[in-house]
């Protein structure tokens, strides 16, 4: 295996459940994390709905995969970003979103919530900085 670590940006723009994109993205994110790549997740447009709290799809016969987002910190995913304008357009605030904790087991360094709401210039910078962008 190559030792090269690339910056991966997973760009999530689709709501969960209505299509399979959100679930498929999460699968690929977990694969990328398993290969020790630098994983960055960005949620924008309807993708912000993937992180809403309190999802319960038992009534529509689908699996609730939202708890999986909360485990991303355990996969050493530390960079999760949400576009502020997309939240505002949907009447949402950070309070509507899941909290995802992160902890480094070697150094005991920890972050209570790695979900970071960012402005448009930061979104552009994330895209510029990425080696690879996976779009979902």
């Amino acid at each position, binding site marked *: 295996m190559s030792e090269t670590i690339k910056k991966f940006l997973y760009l999530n723009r689709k709501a969960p459940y*209505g299509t399979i994109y959100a679930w498929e993205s999460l699968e690929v994110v977990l694969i990328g994390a398993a290969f020790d790549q630098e994983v960055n997740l960005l949620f924008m447009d309807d993708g912000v709905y993937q992180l809403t709290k*309190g999802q*319960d799809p*038992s009534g529509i016969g689908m699996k609730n995969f939202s708890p999986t987002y909360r485990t991303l910190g355990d996969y050493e995913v530390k960079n999760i970003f949400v576009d502020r304008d997309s939240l505002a357009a*949907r*009447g949402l605030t950070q309070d509507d979103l899941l909290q995802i904790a992160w902890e480094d087991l070697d150094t005991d360094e920890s972050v209570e919530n790695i979900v970071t709401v960012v402005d448009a210039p930061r979104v552009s910078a994330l895209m510029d900085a990425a080696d690879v962008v996976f779009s979902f």
Partner: protein
Amino acid sequence: MSILHTVNKSPFERNSLASCLKFATPGAAVLLIEDGVYAGLRGTTAVPLITDALERVKIYVLGPDLKARGFAAERLIPGIGVVDYAQFVALAVQHAKVQAWL
């Protein structure tokens, strides 16, 4: 007998709801299902579309689809009704036909 329209797309991604509401005639019913339920929430850019339409048509949201996405009925724009699957069937029976806006 009027039409029951169903909209299953997010209003932020497709124009299905806008087209539906443009052509729905007074007395029609619009049922928001799947990703269409996001249009029923308060505080979004789709609110003017919905509040304008509520003066002419009845608007419903399918409860299980709303719950799946993590939102309670309290988050809906006032005037929108919440229905379950049985009531969805009842609405389909009450109207002359069902028109889906995919």
